[in-house]
């Protein structure tokens, strides 16, 4: 197995009395895509934002490339961290500054980090980045409103790539896009991962897309990870009733089986303090009490 690039241990993120993320632990390995799924309000975006230091965490520890990311940091260390970890946002309309050209947006990162020798090199870098995400060099002088949603998301991706990071958090990067454009962006993300050896934390609620792009998947519900395993295991051998319920709700483009299949409703079962993560088989974790997990597993 590859090296761990990120370790999250007992992460808690409370906003007042709201426990948005309530003690979750997981690792991300170099070069993989970890899918983080769940319904609105489950804490998946908060998790992503805590990892990239948009929030000060309530409790727990996040280690990135062997260093605790929430510890005290010198300016230099922070700069290095920001370079290594980047984020792609959901809304390509809101995440680009309307007063900046695509070129300025992409170059902002390397302006700060001084990553070029002269203007010519800067221009060249912008051009290469635009091309690597499937846009043209000429697009550098255009403003955000001159692009379509899919193109804007490509600019967002180019910006994330500009500092040559090793880890990218993609927070619902395709849910605001049309179906045919979603596929374009997902293919682009996969191709870039191959070329640059990127590691992704892919946050989404669209389970079929997550299954497609992820190596492993973590299912969140009410601030907890209820199940974590390889994409194949989660989809073919789900253990937790919530995962089963989620999977049964995905509509498939197959009218005949849609007419006959039944959805599994999820009845929330209270979990006591003795609930913990159980490894039901290697690499496949289920959250619950001993008795619950035993019952789910034998079913």
């Amino acid at each position, binding site marked *: 197995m590859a090296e761990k690039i990120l370790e999250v241990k007992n992460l808690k993120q409370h906003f007042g009395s709201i426990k948005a993320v309530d003690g979750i632990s997981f690792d991300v390995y170099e070069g993989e895509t970890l899918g983080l799924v769940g*319904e*609105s309000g489950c804490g998946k975006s908060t998790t992503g934002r805590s990892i990239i230091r948009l929030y000060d965490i309530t409790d727990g520890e996040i280690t990135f490339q062997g260093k605790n990311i929430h510890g005290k940091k010198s300016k230099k260390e922070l700069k290095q961290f920001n370079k290594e970890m980047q984020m792609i946002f959901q809304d390509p309309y809101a995440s680009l500054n309307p007063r900046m050209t695509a070129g300025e947006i992409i170059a902002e990162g390397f302006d700060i980090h001084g990553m070029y020798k002269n203007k010519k090199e800067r221009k060249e870098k912008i051009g290469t980045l635009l091309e690597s995400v499937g846009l043209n060099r000429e697009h550098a002088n255009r403003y955000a409103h001159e692009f*379509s*949603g*899919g*193109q804007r998301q490509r600019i967002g991706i180019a910006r994330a790539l500009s500092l040559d990071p090793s880890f990218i958090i993609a927070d619902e990067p395709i849910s605001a896009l*049309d*179906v*045919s*454009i*979603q*596929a*374009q962006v*997902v*293919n682009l993300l*996969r*191709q870039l991962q191959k070329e640059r050896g990127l590691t992704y934390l892919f946050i989404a*609620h669209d*389970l*079929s*897309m997550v*299954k*497609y792009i992820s190596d492993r998947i973590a299912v969140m519900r009410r601030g907890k990870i209820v199940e974590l395993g390889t*994409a194949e295991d989660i*989809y073919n051998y789900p253990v937790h009733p919530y995962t089963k*319920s*989620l999977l*049964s*709700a*995905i*509509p*498939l*483009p*197959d*009218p*005949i*089986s*849609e*007419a*006959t299949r039944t*959805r599994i*409703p*999820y009845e929330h079962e209270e979990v006591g303090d003795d609930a913990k993560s159980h490894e039901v088989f290697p690499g496949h974790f289920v959250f619950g009490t001993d008795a619950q997990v035993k019952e789910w597993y034998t079913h």
Partner: protein
Amino acid sequence: MSENLLEVKNLKINFKTYAGIVQAVRGVNFEVKQGETLCIVGESGSGKSVTSNALMKLIPQPPGIYEEGQILFDGRDLVPMTEKEMTKIRGNEIAMIFQDPMTALNPTMRIGKQIMEVILKHNKNVSKADAKKRAIELIDQVGIPFPEQRFKQYPHEFSGGMRQRIVIAIALAAEPKLLIADEPTTALDVTIQAQIIELMKEIQRTSNTAIIFITHDLGVVANIADRVAVMYAGQIVEYGTANEIFYNPKHPYTWGLLGSMPDLDNDADQLLRTIPGSPPDLIHPPKGDAFAARNEYAMQIDYEQDPPMFEVSATHFAKTWLLHPDAPNVPVPEAVRKRIEGYIQKNKEAGIDLGKVGE
């Protein structure tokens, strides 16, 4: 076969803008029978929402222009009707559900009162007490527990899924013959989406309401549609029964849509099929087939002449030159064909008789 409740004939809707005239809907034909569900699928800007709003005469004029065409509802043409005449039809005979339940509800009014308002407005002979009874029945019917207590609550006290149920209750209050649902589940989580769709199907079974369901999610379409209209650049490019569209798609755009959706059994090593480029500008619609520029199978004629609707079967039509007798034989793309065969195989194993579909 029952009578057509709604017939839309050659509907054209334009919008005047500073940049020029946008031809949002460019000659759309379809019909809806009583008790059936027609799904209109398409991407943003394909004209699906404009079409559905046009049916309710909700297009503001100006800037909107009903350029041409007829909307025959129960035999009457809605296009020339005055606003006063339309008020009698809206809500009463045709009701609409929107994407965002919060904006569809009045935040300062108890939900019971919002439902009662519709009942009282549409039936002058109903007493207030009866209207209240009916409203509570409706809240119960859309699957909200404790209807008496819920009757007195405000919209903010409900979750997103529950709010959409209330919007459905309001839409049903006047017992409409046609329900238009514009992306009613897009803002909801998958498990809630499944519940709302179940509810709409249940309502249809009991009240025989016709439904026009607008969505971009093909999975949802497969679940709810009897018939499907695929829209692209303001036109219907393929039209058929759900089985025909999903198991025997003919239009390259439909192939693209089906191919770009990942599937749970998809081979993870394969890239998704994409539709290159983006939709055309409808101020200056391209000459010929509007899809030509994004169509890998486009022929010379696609850039010159707009294709007619070719008949595939009595219920299945597609607007592509590929169906012309002189066109080369272009098979369904490998990835899409494999997937369809997979579904058919799976259904066969489950013992479901498929008859002739998928051939």
